[in-house]
């Protein structure tokens, strides 16, 4: 059932007329937008929502995205009126907000094994950028500003490459070894006096733990570089291992992945960054700390903002995605040690179980939280489309490229065995579908296969563009 664009329901032009409080040279002439009543809008967006597949619709095993169930109660805490404060309030008047932030910094430090945390980065890629900027500041501070290379494994997230480039670095791509892990010889060759950092995720994008991480860390450190941990896969390790203990110097956390804040159709997330003590002075400003309060007799601490000594400044106009951070805090406070460890245990159990149940070839292993199957002779993108017809969301496709026609699958801990079986059945059903079926898929969805090529060739990015056309 087609839902018209708002502009197809109404367009009303309002002239900025004589009752304008401003002289006309300071104003626009008119504004033309849909003018609709609340009931009409409620129906519009209700209908649109029904054309969206979310976590509550079914399994969503997008590899590397950690699509886990978002507990409803965290929405309630973020919606508390007391959570709605302006960032320019005096510190004294927002002690509650500062306490949440401080406690979350502490939680994340514990979980990552890091000495200092900033909550400012509004997303994982922003966290990476902070990491890279901190690395630059650190090297500059030590008089090693010449380091202009960042090493990134071939199988890394695209953001790693893009972030390094945004930071002004040359990217040195690192091939994998036959087992799908970092090739130590290649690493040795890549490292030099120009190495600023190696960016890794562990387990890597194949779901494999980099067993030689201690040696890797030593090599990078010996070369004078820093070791960066991409937190995208942290959901595999809660209660089992900490990046700080592995020798990582700086890491980001994806709270929308590991700590179950909603993905919101693409965001907002949050990408806090943790660092070892040596790097703490370079973190973005401001951070939160307990104040040395004269009135120490009080049972409640007082919190204050402070700028790290050699701060890189800010990477956000204010202090990041507060409403997301408070949900992450609530999630961690709810689960505690036992819940977090259980989440990772079941995430790993689920990934391995699902891998054992599907008929597509699954190279490498053993896996942690995700695995990458190969669609073999089939086109992975077609496989994904066809899986939609079986009522499930498909995995990430065609990446990492180390596996041909990759189906990168991360079921997370929230799926029941019954759902994993249903998901496996969907994978397996597609294995026997013929080319024609695959190419025609999906056929049971709101929209059938969408023409991406013409969308890009003839970009129509607004209702105005559609009108111009017709």
């Amino acid at each position, binding site marked *: 059932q087609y839902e018209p*664009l*708002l502009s197809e329901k109404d367009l009303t032009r*309002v002239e900025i007329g004589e009752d*304008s409080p401003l002289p006309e040279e300071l*104003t626009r002439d008119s504004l033309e937008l*849909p*003018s*609709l009543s609340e009931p009409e809008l409620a129906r519009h*967006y209700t209908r*649109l929502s*029904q054309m969206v*597949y979310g*976590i509550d619709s079914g399994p969503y095993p997008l590899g590397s995205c950690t699509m886990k169930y978002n507990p409803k109660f965290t929405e309630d805490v973020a919606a508390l009126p007391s959570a709605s404060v*302006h960032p*320019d*309030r005096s510190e*004294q*008047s927002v002690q*509650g907000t500062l306490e949440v932030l401080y*406690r979350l910094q502490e939680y994340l430090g*514990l979980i990552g094994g890091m000495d200092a945390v900033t909550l400012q980065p509004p997303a994982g890629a*922003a966290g990476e950028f902070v990491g890279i900027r901190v690395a630059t500041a650190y090297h500059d501070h030590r008089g090693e500003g010449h380091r202009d290379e960042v090493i990134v494994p071939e199988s890394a*997230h695209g953001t790693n*490459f893009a972030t390094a480039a945004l930071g002004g670095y040359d990217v040195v791509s690192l091939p994998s070894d036959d087992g799908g892990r970092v090739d130590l010889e290649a690493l040795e060759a890549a490292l030099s006096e120009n190495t600023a950092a190696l960016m890794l995720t562990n387990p890597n994008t194949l779901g494999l733990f980099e067993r030689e*991480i201690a040696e890797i860390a030593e090599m990078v450190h010996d070369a004078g570089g820093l070791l960066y941990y991409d937190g995208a896969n942290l959901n595999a*390790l809660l209660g*089992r*291992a900490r990046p700080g*203990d*592995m020798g990582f110097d700086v890491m980001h956390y994806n709270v929308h992945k590991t700590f179950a804040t909603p*993905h919101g159709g693409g*965001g*907002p997330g949050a*990408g806090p960054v943790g660092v070892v003590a040596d790097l703490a002075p370079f973190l973005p400003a401001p951070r939160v700390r307990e104040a040395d309060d004269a009135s120490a007799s009080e049972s*409640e601490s007082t919190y204050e903002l402070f700028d790290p000594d050699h701060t890189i400044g800010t*990477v956000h*106009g204010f202090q990041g995605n507060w*409403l997301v951070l408070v949900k992450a805090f609530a999630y961690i406070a*709810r689960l*505690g*040690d*036992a*819940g977090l460890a*259980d989440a990772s245990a079941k995430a790993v*159990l689920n990934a391995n179980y699902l891998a*054992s149940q599907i008929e597509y070839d699954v190279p490498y292993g*053993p*896996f942690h939280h995700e695995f990458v199957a190969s669609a073999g002779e089939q086109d992975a993108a077609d496989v994904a*489309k066809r899986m939609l017809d079986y009522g499930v969301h498909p995995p990430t496709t065609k990446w990492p490229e180390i596996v041909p026609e990759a189906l990168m699958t991360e079921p997370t801990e*929230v799926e029941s065995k019954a759902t*994993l079986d249903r998901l496996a059945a969907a994978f397996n059903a597609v294995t026997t579908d013929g080319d024609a079926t695959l190419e025609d898929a999906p056929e049971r969805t*709101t*929209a*059938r296969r969408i023409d*991406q090529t013409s969308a890009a060739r003839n*970009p*129509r*990015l*607004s*209702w105005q563009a559609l009108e111009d056309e017709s």
Partner: protein
Amino acid sequence: MHGSHSGSPYAPHTADERSAMLEAIGVESVEELFDVPPEVGFEDSYGIDARTERETRRLVRSILSRNDDLTELLGRGHYGYYVPSVVDHLADRSEFLTSYTQYQPEVSQGFLQALFEYQSLLVELTGLEVANCSMYDAATALGEAATLADRVRDATGHRVLVPDLLLEGRRSTLENYVAGTDLVVEAYPTDDANVDVGGLDELVDDDIVMLYAENPTVRGTIEERLEAVGDLAEETDALFVLGTDPVALSLLQRPADVGADVVVGDASVLGLPTSYGMGLGLFATSEEYLRQVPGRLVGASEDATGRRAYTLTLQTREQHIRRERATSNICTNQAWVALRTAMHAAVLGPEGLVDLAKRGVTRAERLATRVDDLAGASAPVHDRRHVREFVARVDQPARAVAADLEERGFAVHVVDDHEIQLCVAGVADDRIDPFVDALEEVIR
């Protein structure tokens, strides 16, 4: 209630199921699946207690109750407009809230259409042809505009000019964004809070790749000579980047009409209440720069049956395809806030938007007049037209005035030793009188 006792309450599996799964995998225990060498394993505990849902809610409520309940006359880039309840209810529908990037458009049509409508809203507001479906906030959008300028302008240019009054968070973020480029950020002078066009003219040369101005300015003044700024930018082939927001745009000059190449700002002035600075980076530009735009774009297309359908498009600009040659490193963005902004704008409609903007002018100027009437205060400091907010001079030290006001339940900005800034955006009408009374008391 599986697992509620000693594990994650959000992860199922009975003991029987776990056994069956382990057997299928061919291992004895979950422990075996963890391929973590002992030397880097974590045997300790974090020391974080588990809590029931109720306890957790009470904990957070208890902590947040330490936030004072103040009437905020605060603005400067973050506004507390009332968000209609229907926006919360619709945006919180779990299909919207719990989905992710629309990699599979066939099951994401609703979100894509909403983002397409968001883009269209910004096209109408800015007069530019292209709007992406979000950056993080105004500051990061400004940073992305600079990297866009770096890509599209003469390779020899390297100067980025911004107003000397630019908010520190925006300037610092911009500097981080250009740290990996040859660009340098310089300030141009302002005159009574607006662009000092003469002073700017003196700074401009062919080495300028980007010229940034804001309307309204950080001090709430309405910029009067945007065409002149646009002309200067055009003469030097610099990208003219204008900072603003959807409410201001509903009334003020259309960016396209003053020659803006890129519009940035915080679009979450619609859609979010005060959120400790969480925002929505508005990013619009002309068709000319389409293939250099950072962030996601939703385009109209057709499905296999020829029916209208929406999809993310021009993804070859993005990091997951183009890697180090991407137009930005952004991946997770602020899509859900964009949805809320689109909803809020739709609820207001064009009449409501224009009305909201107009009231921003009349209410701010009326409050300024009332403050000006008080002994010990004068307002507005700037001899300009204002929207939403303005700077007031107080004879008493501004810091003390702000502290005294806070004790009386009002939060205001301290701009300078004897200047405070007052914003009416989110303030209910019936809070204005009490505020003026309180201000009168504290500046005596």
